[in-house]
């Protein structure tokens, strides 16, 4: 019986692997196998020298870092306060944080675009006009960070909520307070370290979201990594697939790096004990 179960597991795993790996392998082969030339990594070498590759990748990474910082600064105090202060408000916050899942990005970006057009016209005589100009700066479009923060809310909220469920926040805070820690110190020293897993999860999800986001940035006219891949694809099919494969690897590498940075101390801690 157990044997058969194991067999079934392998079959399912094999099918799933096929489903994911075949398209990946096909893409990879397509990028290195040029008809008439045999195997060549030409497509990959061309990427590095391609116009806009580095700048778009850097832009995406900067946006990701900014988004993670803003969304965590916003959500961590919020969910902790929610847990300690007003647990009854939880369903409300949950619904609000889930709204971005319901609103399609296309509708979301249409709304943003309208505001961006309307704003400067009506506010042209006020200092707010400058604000509108600054947040649309091509070199670092703050408006994208704002949009991504909203889009990341559902994932970040869920990750943090799951993390908070696993610990008794109230008791930890009270224990820290009775040990002479002020409120902010109790949060930073007693609660946050125990939320590390949740914080990492939230960061992963946000990073993946920002690196792959296309609709909003494209329609607002910016060129982060995903948009650049799309643009390149229009001109050179092979190279665009090569970039896709590469971006997959880059995302994986970043996630692994984050996991490594986060898990390292934990493992250490456990072996020390």
């Amino acid at each position, binding site marked *: 019986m157990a044997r058969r179960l194991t067999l079934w597991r392998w079959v399912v795993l094999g099918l799933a692997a096929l489903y994911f790996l075949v398209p990946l392998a096909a893409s990879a082969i397509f990028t290195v196998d040029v008809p008439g030339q045999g195997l060549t990594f030409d497509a990959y070498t061309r990427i590095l020298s391609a116009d806009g590759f580095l700048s778009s990748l850097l832009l995406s990474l900067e946006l990701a870092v900014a988004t993670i910082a803003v969304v965590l600064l916003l959500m961590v105090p919020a969910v902790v306060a929610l847990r300690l202060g007003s647990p009854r408000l939880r369903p409300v916050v949950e619904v609000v944080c889930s709204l971005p899942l319901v609103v399609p990005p296309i509708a979301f970006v249409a709304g943003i675009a309208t505001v961006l057009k309307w704003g400067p016209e009506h506010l042209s005589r006020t200092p707010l006009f400058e604000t509108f100009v600054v947040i649309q700066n091509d070199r670092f479009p703050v408006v994208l960070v704002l949009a991504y923060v909203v889009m990341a809310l559902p994932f970040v909220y869920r990750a943090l909520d799951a993390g908070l469920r696993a610990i008794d926040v109230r008791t930890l805070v009270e*224990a820290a307070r009775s040990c002479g*820690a002020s409120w902010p110190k109790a949060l930073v020293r007693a609660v946050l370290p125990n939320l590390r897993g949740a914080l990492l999860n939230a960061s992963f999800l946000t990073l993946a979201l920002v690196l792959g986001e296309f609709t909003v940035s494209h329609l607002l006219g910016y060129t982060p990594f995903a948009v650049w891949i799309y643009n390149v694809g229009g001109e050179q099919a092979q190279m665009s697939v090569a970039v896709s494969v590469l971006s997959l690897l880059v995302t994986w590498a970043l996630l692994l790096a984050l996991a490594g940075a986060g898990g390292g101390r934990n493992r250490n801690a456990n072996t020390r004990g």
Partner: protein
Amino acid sequence: MTATTLEKAVAEKAATVEFRSLRREFGATVALDGLDLTVRPGEFLALLGPSGCGKTTALRMLAGFEHPDSGAVLVDGEDVTHVPAHRRDAGMVFQSYSLFPHLNAVDNVAFGLRMRGVRTAERRARAAELLELVGLADKGERYPHQLSGGQQQRIALARALALRPRVLLLDEPLSALDAKVRLTLREEIRRLQQELGITTLFVTHDQEEALSVADRVAVMRAGRLEQCAEPAELYGRPATAFVAEFVGTMSRIPGELKDGTVEVLGQRLPADGEVPAGPVDVLVRPEAVQVRPDEQGTARIVATAFLGAVVRVTVRLADGTEVKADLPAHEATGLGAGTAVGVSLPERPVLVAERIQK
């Protein structure tokens, strides 16, 4: 050696704690309804009561986690009602799982010292000292999840003592532990408390626990203090019927009060308790009830429970009242359910209370 240095440091500071007509409502429920209580310096006081009687709320007010709607909390005569929790100088041990999961035992104990900005070497030394005090010197590098429940509570105790607090607050610290550990740990807490001479408040709903460790026990009911007395007095001379029935086991036997004596079970005994003459209930402890086999007896045994040294028998009197009695195991042999018995009380004053109609 460590204990003696600690002892001096703390004994000098042993504090008086006063609750002055504390009142607190949570919505419609009244948690504290004018609580007045004074804890003497160096005393181990247990706050005992059924759940929802306000004992934990009172403790949390002393810790600074709750604030009274009215009334005041005084430590050494100084009003601390509005002092924030982290400046209260009160060490607290929680029900369970209050250790910081990301820190090992030493760092948990040293947490408070770190908050005070004590240097690393100094605070590690002091933490080691405290771990030795609670008998876990060799577990310093362990993380909470690698420790048993009892060990975790010892660490929590060490952590609470690390800052040499003026009062030690114990919020049902034993209730999550299994019976054996609970017993040894409560003895250990008592020993430590006596060594350190620190004023201690201990919240519990377990009357046996309260009676066995505390200098005085304060019984609370519905946000008020019913009685605060030494365990022996509480048990032997309960001030109210509530205390009598909450602390230990009490049976009610109907009697007739006249001229300060009460007619009960065919005996006439001096009566204690301020009740108007007439029909009353006599409150008796199971160990005070005498039961002997008697063919002519009108009472019948309805149940027996073996408790080790004694057997607790439940006897139904002729009028239907059930009385519990503890008999030495050897006397109880042959007293099976259905046996006809005679019931009597020793010639001593008995506690009477107003008749409760059943």
